[in-house]
């Protein structure tokens, strides 16, 4: 049984009201299921409340957002009043916002419901960052900080790149954490569970964003939910590279934590990455493996006629939006092809100021904010074939939407949007030894 502090017992026993008591009840059941010895204090929660789903919509119609929050976010059947969030809590990405009205077959009712939910939850203190990448727009936990985040790509980034500590949380655990400031202290919260389990030796230097995505896809497939340690002359990754690497590894496997010695903060050295254990025999990533991953990510494409190009999964960084704008300068999209760049509203504001949004829109593309076609499960009407620079979307969208996928570089994707044809091919690998 999880050991509770006096403060936690008081919350459980109703001192702070019915909602907090229900939240503690859920956290205790969850901690006991995991076998957690105690709860962690947290001041950073990233969850999801505003995305409409059939079940949530029904609950909202029965009893408003309080009912929806009680049932979905606290696993509680009682009528309760939603209190103000106790600790800083942000909203992750959700369905389409009104900037996508009329351009795809997504219910206007959902967009209205979502706007209504945003008003409700922001009045309760939820920070509507509305992105799968809260770390790109101001939510940056510090090294060693216990946080409670959902969203697989955000979890792996927070654990690995920022050195914060979170498990892959869900709707009810983040909902309960947001009004109690507690989460089970289990798994990635404990130092002994953060050491590497697998060694991946790359014989290739990563030449950019696409390479990091393919490498992540390989690593996730190889280790599944374990904790890989990558070594080799990899080069210097940037934010977008590691965002893409982790998202890919969390899609092909379930990676929540990795180390790149000398690059990620839990592992200044190879020895530090494995703790007291000796590094295991390495798995090798070379030209053959890279080619196989590329072929796998492109195995669902047959037709070279591209209807839809998707950039930004996880949500595009400023640098990525700028690259798309540069590649589109003076060009016009093919009449039958849509190009969407997905990003948080806060980054769109910078993109607007930098003139990138105008360049992209002049060419016929769109910069859409806060949303995700995979979450909303819709693409532009009539899409049969899409192209993306995201290994994660190449993995998920064909399954979710039944469409064909091409995976390539950002520039190849922009070219496909301009020509309406896929002409991507794998550039030679940078072999280092």
């Amino acid at each position, binding site marked *: 049984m999880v050991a509770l502090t006096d403060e936690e017992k008081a919350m459980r026993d109703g001192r702070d009201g019915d909602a907090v008591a229900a939240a503690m009840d*859920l956290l205790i*059941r*969850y901690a*006991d*299921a*995991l*076998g957690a010895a105690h709860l962690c204090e947290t001041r950073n929660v990233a969850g*999801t409340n505003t995305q409409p*789903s*059939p*079940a949530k919509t*029904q*609950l909202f119609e029965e009893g408003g957002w309080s009912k929806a929050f009680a*049932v*979905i976010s606290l*696993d509680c059947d009682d009528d309760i009043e939603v209190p103000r969030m106790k600790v800083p809590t942000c909203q992750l990405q959700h369905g389409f916002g009104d900037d996508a009205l009329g351009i795809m077959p997504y219910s206007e009712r959902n967009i209205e419901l979502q706007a209504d939910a945003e008003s409700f939850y922001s009045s309760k203190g939820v920070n509507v960052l509305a992105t799968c990448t809260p770390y790109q727009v101001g939510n940056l936990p510090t090294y060693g900080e216990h946080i409670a985040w*959902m*969203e*697989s790509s955000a*979890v792996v980034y927070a654990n690995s790149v920022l050195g914060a500590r979170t*498990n*892959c*949380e*869900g*709707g*009810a*655990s983040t909902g309960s954490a947001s009004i109690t400031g507690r989460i*089970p202290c*289990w*798994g990635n919260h404990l130092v002994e569970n953060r050491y590497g389990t697998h060694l991946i030796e790359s014989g290739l230097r990563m030449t950019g964003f696409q390479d990091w995505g393919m490498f992540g896809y390989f690593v996730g497939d190889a280790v599944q*939910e374990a904790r890989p340690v990558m070594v080799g002359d990899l080069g210097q990754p940037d934010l977008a590279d590691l965002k893409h690497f982790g998202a890919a590894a969390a*899609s092909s496997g*379930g990676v929540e934590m990795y180390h790149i010695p000398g690059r990620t903060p839990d592992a200044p050295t190879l020895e530090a990455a494995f703790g007291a254990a000796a590094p295991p025999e390495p798995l090798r990533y070379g030209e053959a493996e890279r080619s196989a991953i590329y072929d796998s990510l492109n195995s669902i494409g047959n037709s070279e006629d591209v209807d839809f190009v998707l950039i930004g999964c996880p949500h595009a960084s400023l640098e990525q939006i700028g690259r798309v704008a540069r590649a589109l300068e003076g060009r016009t999209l093919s009449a039958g092809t849509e190009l969407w760049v997905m990003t948080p509203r806060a980054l769109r504001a910078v993109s607007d100021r930098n003139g990138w949004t105008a360049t992209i829109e002049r060419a016929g593309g769109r910069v859409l904010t806060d949303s995700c076609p*995979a979450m909303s499960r819709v693409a532009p009407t009539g899409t049969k074939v899409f192209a993306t620079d995201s290994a994660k979307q190449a993995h*998920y969208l064909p*399954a*979710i939407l039944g469409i064909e996928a091409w995976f390539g570089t950002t520039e190849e994707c922009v070219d496909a949007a301009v020509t309406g044809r896929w002409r991507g091919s794998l550039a030679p690998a940078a072999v280092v030894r």
Partner: protein
Amino acid sequence: MTSVAETRLVLRGRGIVPGRVEGRALVSHETISGWGGIDPATGTIIERRHELYGVCFTGKVLVFPGAKGSSGWSGFFQSTRLMGTAPLAMVFTNLTTKAALGAIVTRVPTVTEFDDDPVARIATGDRVEVDADNGLVVVYGPRPGHPR
């Protein structure tokens, strides 16, 4: 029904959501995705490459290695409860936050952390009793013919 003579196998584990039910097993040898993997409205597996693609788990004892994919896992299984399509019980091998939270909000008897692998030892169609109060899964009757 619960006579000793019929008992084929008893797996010992740890109950994480209490309760005791009896029903037919549906065994997945592959991990299951929530978001993108199941349709809560119909209680079916929708991941195209999954061995149980198109199969309904409603009212079955779902035996599986563990959860994979999005952190929406728990929310999708919670929706099966709200929409009346939930499995009867859950029996899984690998304990993770997704599967643990998912089982709790689905509110069906759940056992994990076994002394033996339930996925290897239980077959689809087996009549099983899930006794999560005592951390037991009892398998009845002869082993049915099955492709694996």
